């Protein structure tokens, strides 16, 4: 299966672990990801609230280029996914905005007719490749590992179309397909604070604390994420949360692609598992290396 791949800025920088694990698992899953040529930043959600038209225009530039390939665009980042989809949605719904975006693209010698479907990597892996295929390719099972699926607030809202906005289960089923135990907890779609970590740290730390607490209370060994920013907030700032709230969280925060990579039997180093801020716990290492 071939897709146009839109990595987004984070994946090539702070989230290079995510990049490495995707690069590692894609061939094994038969996933052909052809990177979009000359792509630019989607503007992320922050830019959208500052300069809306500009944000739509730069986001649409990516879609305009992608349209030439007649394939679905897949992105591993929840913010990119949301912004590109929102651009598509507004482009279709509001003719005046469509005209303005069209003018902006024309100035750059581009045009867009609104026919690109933007999808999240989780959707593609779980629904196009499928749980059965993933399970059949697995060389290991994550037996005994309790994983809390963390969807974050962007991928399912308001109506992404591939899962229930209140009670998403796509990742739950993936975790079970990998042989791990899926932890049911309430905050799986709550916000991690996202970029507020840079502007309103107190608030963001509190949100992360609540999330980690709920996962821990429900017995999670680790959290599986699908978004570079969610992963960074929960992983890199876990120490700061502990200091601020006098907690002793020790919960590794992994990308779902890393878990898949482990079951495919790929070397842990290729999956970036050594570069997490919260190191893998001993029992986790045993599960990953053994079985």
């Amino acid at each position, binding site marked *: 299966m071939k897709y146009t791949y839109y990595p987004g800025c984070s994946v090539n920088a702070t989230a290079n672990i995510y990049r490495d694990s995707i690069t590692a698992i894609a061939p094994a899953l038969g996933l052909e990801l052809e990177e979009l040529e000359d792509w630019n930043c989607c503007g992320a959600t922050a830019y959208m609230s500052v300069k809306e038209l500009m944000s739509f225009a730069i986001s649409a530039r990516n879609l305009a280029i992608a349209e030439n390939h007649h394939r679905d665009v897949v992105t591993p980042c929840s913010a990119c996914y949301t912004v590109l989809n929102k651009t598509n949605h507004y482009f279709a719904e509001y003719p005046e905005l469509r005209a303005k975006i069209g003018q902006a693209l024309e100035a750059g010698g581009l045009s867009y007719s609104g026919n690109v479907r933007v999808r999240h990597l989780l959707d593609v892996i779980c629904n196009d490749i499928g749980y059965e295929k993933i399970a059949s390719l697995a060389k290991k099972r994550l037996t005994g590992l309790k994983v809390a699926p963390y969807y974050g607030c962007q991928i399912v809202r308001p109506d992404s179309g591939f899962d*229930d906005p*209140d*009670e998403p289960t796509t990742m739950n089923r993936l975790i079970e397909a990998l042989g791990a135990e899926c932890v049911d*907890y*309430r*905050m799986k779609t709550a916000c991690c604070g996202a970029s507020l970590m840079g502007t309103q740290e107190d608030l963001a730390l509190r949100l992360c604390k*609540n999330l980690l607490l709920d996962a821990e209370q429900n017995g999670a060994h680790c959290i599986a994420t699908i978004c570079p920013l969610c992963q960074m907030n929960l992983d890199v700032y876990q120490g700061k949360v502990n200091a601020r709230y006098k907690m002793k969280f020790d919960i590794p925060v992994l990308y779902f692609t890393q878990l898949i990579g482990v079951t495919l039997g790929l070397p842990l180093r290729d999956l970036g598992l050594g570069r997490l801020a919260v190191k893998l716990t001993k029992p986790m290492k045993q599960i990953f290396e053994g079985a």
Partner: protein
Amino acid sequence: MAERIGVYVCHCGTNIAGKVNIDEVVSFAKGLEDVAVVRDYKFMCSDPGQAMIEKDITEGKIDRVVVASCSPLMHENTFRKVCERSGVNAYLFAMANIREQCSWVHLDGAASTEKAKALIAAAVRRSTWLEPLEKRVVPINPRTLVIGAGIAGIQAALDLAEAGKEVVLVEREASIGGHMAKFDKTFPTLDCAACILTPRMVQVGQHKNIKLLTYAEVAEVSGYVGSFKVKVREKARYVDRELCNGCGMCWDKCPGRRIPKEEQNVHKKLSIGTRGEKNKRGEQNPAPSIYMPFMQAVPAVPVIDRDSCRYFQEGKCRLCEKLCERKAIKYDMEDRIHEFEVGSIIIAAGLQTFDPAVMKRYRYGILPNVVTALEFEMMNCAAGSTDGKIVLADGRTPKSIGIIHCIGSRDKDYHEYCSRVCCMYALKFAHLIKEKTEAEVYNFYIDLRCFGKGYEEFYDRLLGEDVRFIRGKVGEITDMPIHEGEQGKLVVRVEDTLVGAIRRIPVDMVILCTGLEAPRGLPELAKMCSVSIGKDGFLIEKHPKLGPVSTATDGVFIVGACQSPKDIPDTVAQASAASSAVLSMIMREKIEIEAATAEIDGEKCSGCRICNNLCPYLAIRFDEEKKVSIINEALCKGCGTCVAACPSNAIKAKHFDNRQIFAEIEGILSSV
């Protein structure tokens, strides 16, 4: 011979004359072929207006009439009567709608005038091809079928029975009483629901003019106004109605354990059904397999729940049979079909409540102390499984309760409409909680709609009872504690729109004020009775203001919550309205049936039967001998569906035949 047509142009005050140039239209009409007289008047529908037409007819000036005024829905009947009075067949009258379809909807006066001319030319051309038709008269059977025996059906049935007319009352559940029988108190007067309802239930059960069939559903309806034929399937209850005296020996000792499912979304624990006898340790079977839906059931005859009955499931037990002194238990009982002929049908099918399990953010079905309004009603009911006590799942008394309004109503994702009763029952709940416990009560509302008699006063009273009101739609109910004091509680997360802040309010119990929706099976019932269903799922009345209980099908009436969500006073009012409409038909003894029906030319019909299933009124049947389809004129409403579908062009719509329609089109296009 040329026709002599009279054209009458109405000013409708300034409604038409304010936009359309009447003088221009009149002189245009005078120039039309076959037109003998043209007049205009301020209000054609008034007595002097009607007299103008009458005079011209009786003086022999005209033999066909065209009135250019409002919609035929308004005054077609008025002018048809004028024609009949003066000796012209009612079907030789044609109407041009130059108000609703012209002066009211256009801004440009000159264009409106041109359009009025075209519409009049069309009516005049059509008029030349009209043919006199005879209305048919059919007798009215004085017996009435009432479907559903909640408060709506009970009221309608009693009204008719008291007037000396026979009623067949059919109820799907094992007892009559409907939802009202499950309530403890009613708003705003707080009178006990059972105290006002049960006397009427008993009256229904004993009335000599009421044939009551419970645990029964309408299976088939055929025929037409005045003489419907109805088949009713009575489900086997495995207890003989004639022999049983409702002594209760059977349910006292029954070892089976039923899962209460009076309502599909109800908690599987709460029930108001009859319970087993207490043993020495004070324990009792909360839901025996043989049971009455509640203590005051009418008829006071239990039913056996096959799904949990030990005899039906395991083949042995038969305890109730041994205990029954009157030998009323009949395990071999089968469903029975009853057939009736009735003149009219009143549909009082009621409602069901919204299932909140689909709104995952409220965790109904997962968190045990999140209950629906109906469950809370049953909890309050003195005969219910909690003896009328308000308790949590673990038996403790709650110290704080949140009441969330508008669950499934006023919500674009579920039902857009307002369910009209939830605000008031929520206030009633708040009062009952204050009366029975010392719990803190929070109402989470969007708007409070207290519109009925005494409702606003009730709200005002509640404000003095220390009940808290928070304006905002609840985002989530969670048992995840974050702050001090949230441990072991349900936390209601809500945007308080008056304060302008997100709040977390810990409570012990949450009541979801679930909205009302159309009951299961309503579409099937509606199809049987040829009644339409709106996009909200409820039955559609003939006219939202002036025909609230009639339907597009003569002789079929709709009352209560199956028409739209409503409270008890409105339901009872509608029930009495429908019964008086039925009585007025019965008093007339006969009814005129519309003559503009469709007709099949047997010579042309190929017997393809395409029309048979298309007819929304089930008026077409196939004659197996002659191999042609035949239309029952009494059932046909002249909608024209079959006419358009017939591949052999064998069906003619009387009063709307091809020549008439083409003439009308020619008229419209004549000025183009």
